[in-house]
C-alpha cells in the first residue's frame, strides 16, 4: 500500500498532502494564539491607568532569545535547502544548529521563569512593601532575607522603566512583621498570568518542534536513503511549523518585553 501525494502535488490542491495539512494546522494555531492575544488586549485596555507593569522582564535575555530564534529560523530553512540540493552533510549541520538554538531558547526561558518565581512582594504589617529577590527563606528561621527595596505604595512597583538605578539592599524581615508574601508567579496579577500562559504555550511549541527536529535529525533520517524527496518534504513541513513558532515570538517579544 502506498500513501498518495506524499511527494507529488495533488492536482486539485496543488500541494502535497502534508503541506496542506500543516497549513490547516497552522491556521488553527493562529486562532489559538489569537484568542490569547485578544485576552491580552482586553485585560490591558481594561487595566486602570498606571497599573500595567512596564520593565518587569529581563530585556537582555528576551533579546538574546529573539536572536536565537531568528537564527534557528534561518538554519531550519538552510537545512531544507541542503536537502533540496542533495547535500546531506550540510543538512545534518544546519538541523543540529536548529536543535541547539531551540534548546538554548528553552534554557534561557527557564532562567527567566526562575527569576520571576524567586522574586517576592512582601506586605508588612506596618503598611510598607518589600520587593526583591529571595535570598534566604528557611522555615526554621524566624526571618526571611531578600535583596531589594522598600516602597510605601504598590503603584511604585509597576513602572520599573521610569525608575533608573533602583538601589537594592539586603533586607532581613522578621516573619512576625509579614502580613502577606507572594512571588511573581502567574497568580500574582493579570500581566504575569498572561506572560506565563503565552510564553509557556510558546515554549511547549518549541519543545514539540524540537522533538520533531530531533527525530528527523536522528532516527528519522533513515528515510533519506529510501526516498529523499519525501524526507525533504518532511523537513519543509517541520520548517513551516518552526517559522510559525518564530512568528509568534516576533509578536510576543514586543508585547511582553517592550510595551
Amino acid at each position, binding site marked *: *500500500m*502506498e*500513501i*498518495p*501525494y506524499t*511527494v*507529488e*502535488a*495533488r*492536482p*486539485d*490542491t*496543488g*500541494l*502535497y498532502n502534508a503541506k*496542506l495539512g500543516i*497549513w*490547516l494546522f497552522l*491556521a488553527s494555531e*493562529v*486562532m489559538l494564539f*489569537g*484568542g490569547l*492575544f*485578544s*485576552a491580552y*488586549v*482586553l485585560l490591558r*485596555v*481594561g487595566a486602570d491607568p498606571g497599573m500595567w507593569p512596564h520593565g518587569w522582564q529581563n*530585556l537582555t535575555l528576551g*533579546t538574546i532569545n*529573539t*536572536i536565537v530564534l*531568528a*537564527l534557528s*529560523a*534561518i538554519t531550519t*530553512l*538552510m537545512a531544507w*535547502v*541542503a536537502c*533540496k*540540493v542533495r*547535500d546531506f552533510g*550540510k543538512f545534518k549541520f544546519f538541523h543540529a544548529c536548529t536543535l541547539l538554538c531551540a534548546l538554548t531558547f528553552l534554557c534561557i526561558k527557564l532562567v527567566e521563569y526562575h527569576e520571576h518565581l524567586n522574586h517576592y512582594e512582601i506586605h508588612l504589617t506596618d503598611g510598607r512593601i518589600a520587593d526583591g529577590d529571595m535570598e534566604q527563606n528557611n522555615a526554621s528561621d524566624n526571618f526571611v532575607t531578600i535583596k531589594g527595596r522598600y516602597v510605601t505604595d504598590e503603584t511604585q512597583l509597576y513602572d520599573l522603566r*521610569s525608575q533608573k538605578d533602583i538601589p537594592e539592599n539586603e533586607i532581613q524581615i522578621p516573619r512576625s512583621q509579614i502580613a502577606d508574601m507572594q512571588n511573581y508567579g502567574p497568580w500574582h496579577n493579570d500581566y504575569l498570568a498572561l506572560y506565563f500562559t503565552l510564553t509557556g504555550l510558546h515554549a511547549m511549541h518549541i519543545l514539540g518542534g524540537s522533538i520533531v527536529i530531533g527525530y528527523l535529525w536522528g532516527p528519522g533520517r533513515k528515510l533519506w536513503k529510501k526516498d529523499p*524527496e519525501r524526507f*525533504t518534504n518532511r523537513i519543509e513541513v517541520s520548517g*513551516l511549523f518552526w*517559522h*510559525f513558532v*518564530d*512568528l509568534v515570538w*516576533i*509578536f510576543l*517579544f*514586543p508585547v511582553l518585553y*517592550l*510595551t
Partner: protein
Amino acid sequence: MSELKTAEQHNAPIVGHRESHEHPVEFGSYLRRCGMVLAVVLGAVALMIWASYLPQDHFSWAKKICIILGIATCNAFVVAGFLMHLISEKKMVYTILGFTVTFVIGLFALTLYAMNDFPRNTVIH
C-alpha cells in the same frame, strides 16, 4: 482492503508533479537571501527596542505600542514572505490564510466590542 487510495486509483486527469521541479534551488543564493532576512530581523528588533525607549513626554504608551507593533508586523511579513515562501505560494495556501485572517479579525472585533458591553446598571469607578 484499505480505504487509502493510491495516485492511480484517484484517476486524476493531470498527474501530480514533484514539487522540487517547480523552484530550482541554489544553495548560495539562498544563503545570501537568508543573510539579508536575518539582517532585517535583527534591525527590526533593534528598532523596536529603540522605539520602546522613546521619551514618555512626546510619545504616550499608546503611540509607542502602535509604532512597535507596526515594526513587528513588517518583521513578520519578511519572515512569512521569505522564510515560509508566502510570496510565491499556491492558491490553496492563500485561501486558507484568507479564511484565517477573516476569523482572526472577527475574534479581535468581538473582543473590542465586548470591552464596552457591560451588564445593565454596572457602575464604573
